[in-house]
């Protein structure tokens, strides 16, 4: 097992897939010679050359449109949107074109492409470079939506996304880029549509995504150490497809659930999970599902303001404690 950072796992996954399949190509702003603004793609240009790893102008619609046209005609493009906030300037291509064209043409085209993007806050960039927009993507029929929390999952899920025949929006959490973790040796490919139980517990379950996973694990450890409360933590990993089987089976152990979401409150993925549990696990419910989210406000940049907005270990600990009291 090698130890890599979350950031290094991105290039590792892309290199693995580019070596395997010469239809895999990669485009985006500053991704080639410069290795990406987050240094996630260092070395790919040198290894695979200018035909496969291509710098683009600041033209998000052209980047995603080109990825789509190429995907429809035989390539497997990976496109980078530098910050997920910038999806707002090319959302038409994502929502109206990439997501719908297979369906609207009666299945005449296939859209094997991945859009990677740095998502989320915690690094004091302010409200236009810190949003968590997984819920924007989740609400669009025709998009798969992935958000890993560990280096191993970055590699395995990104590889699986590249091999998937459908469009995948792949959210990398920018505050996790420096995190280190073990990565399995050799080829590593995971499975989309699978959640993972990362901590066992019988008193309640926490559903978390991306940066909220390590925070939830810490909160769960403290709940056990300080209060003897045993909380399981599920890393949702894949919003679409959603692994309701794992989510429900974990829920049924306690009948008590909390969601920890970095996205602003309204229409977050936790609301969907809460609704599914209410509809399908009602007779197993012991408590209402409690959502722990960023409040419904744009993210502020000052240390103390941003920190009070995004769910913290303390807030998770306190909310679960109070909820089970």
């Amino acid at each position, binding site marked *: 097992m090698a130890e890599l950072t979350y950031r290094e796992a991105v290039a590792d996954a892309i290199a693995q897939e580019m070596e395997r399949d010469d239809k895999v190509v990669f485009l985006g702003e500053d991704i080639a010679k410069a290795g990406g603004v987050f240094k996630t793609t260092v070395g790919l240009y040198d290894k695979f050359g200018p035909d496969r790893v291509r710098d683009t102008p600041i033209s998000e*619609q052209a980047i995603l449109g080109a990825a789509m*046209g190429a995907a429809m005609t035989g390539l497997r493009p990976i496109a980078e949107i530098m910050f997920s906030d910038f999806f707002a300037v090319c959302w038409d291509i994502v929502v109206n074109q990439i997501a719908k064209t297979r369906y609207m043409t009666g299945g005449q*085209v296939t859209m094997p492409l991945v859009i990677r993007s740095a998502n989320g806050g915690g690094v004091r960039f302010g409200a236009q470079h810190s949003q968590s927009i997984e819920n924007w993507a989740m609400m669009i029929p025709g998009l798969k939506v992935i958000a890993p929390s560990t280096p191993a999952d970055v590699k395995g899920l990104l590889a699986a996304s590249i091999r998937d025949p459908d469009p995948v929006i792949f959210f990398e959490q920018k505050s996790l880029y420096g995190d280190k973790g073990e990565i399995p040796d050799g080829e590593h490919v995971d499975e989309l549509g699978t959640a993972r139980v990362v901590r066992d517990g019988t008193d309640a379950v926490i559903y978390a995504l991306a940066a909220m996973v390590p925070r939830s694990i810490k909160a769960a450890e403290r709940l056990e150490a300080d209060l003897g409360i045993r909380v399981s933590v599920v890393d949702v990993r894949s919003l679409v497809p959603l692994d309701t089987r794992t989510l429900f089976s974990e829920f049924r152990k306690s009948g008590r659930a909390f969601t920890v979401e970095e996205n602003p409150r309204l229409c977050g993925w936790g609301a969907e999970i809460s609704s599914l549990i209410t509809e399908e696990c009602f007779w197993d419910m012991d408590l209402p599902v409690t959502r722990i989210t960023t409040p419904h406000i744009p993210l502020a940049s000052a240390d103390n303001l941003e920190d009070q907005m995004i769910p913290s270990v303390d807030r998770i600990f306190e909310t679960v404690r109070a909820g089970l009291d």
Partner: protein
Amino acid sequence: MWRLQLEVRHLEQRAHDLFLQNLIKGTSHLAVGQEAIAAGCATAMRPGDYTFCTYRGHAHTLVRGASMTGMLGELMGKECGMLQGKGGSMHLTDVEKGAMGSYAIIGAHLPIATGAAWAAQYNKTGAVSFCFFGDGTTNIGAFHEALNFAVIWKLPVVFVCENNLYMEYTPIGEVTAVEHPAADRAGAYGLESIIVDGNDADAVYRVARAAVDKAVAGDGPSLIEAKTYRHYGHSRADPATYRPDEEVEEWMAKDPIPMYRSRLLEFGVPEKVVGDIEKSVLKAVDDATEEAKASPVPRDELAHTDVWADGGSAWRN
């Protein structure tokens, strides 16, 4: 080219009639008057080349060889429709024939056509990607992003602006900084400024052919502005009363169909040959109409197919 223009004219006319009979619902944007552009470009294209067009796309889809029954069936919402009733008038597509789709958000398909050209360049297939759009489309960002992108990557794509003088109901001159919405912008991207009479199929063919040759030679994209006029309103809902009578008369006199007929006769093509082609086109349109009318509506379960490549629509296990 005579046949192609007639096919478009009569199929569009039929679509119009079926609308009036309420057999076609929703909307439609006819290309009556603009047939010469579709016919001239399609004649310059080779099998394997790509067409990307707009909601005003019946013409461009048909001239690549798509089935009339599939098209009329789609307009009528029948199971024989080329998109199984899931797309409708604004999204006609026949991938097997190279008709890569009709796009109804202004500008979106310019970058997409550019991407198909990128794949052709990367795979060295020699294919050229054609992208058709209106004058109004030159004022949206995607137009400019795609042109710059195609030029810097030297992609084999031919952008064809069908300048029919109106963006929906507004004269293009009232909302555009330059006189020729596409051609006057070509220079900004290092491209030659090309204007062609879009009602003359032969003239269109010549510029399209030159653009294909340029693309195949690896010399990158072209931007062609073809001047034309639509005979009907913008869409089904538009009686086009905002157009001055003299302008309409002037352009009706330049109708591409009678112009082409005269040219064929002038060149010595026997009247019978010219007429027989028209008869056979009319028969094909009649047959397709009957077939589409007779087709059942799409099975209900088709609503849930083909969101994903596995054929289904499941978002959870």
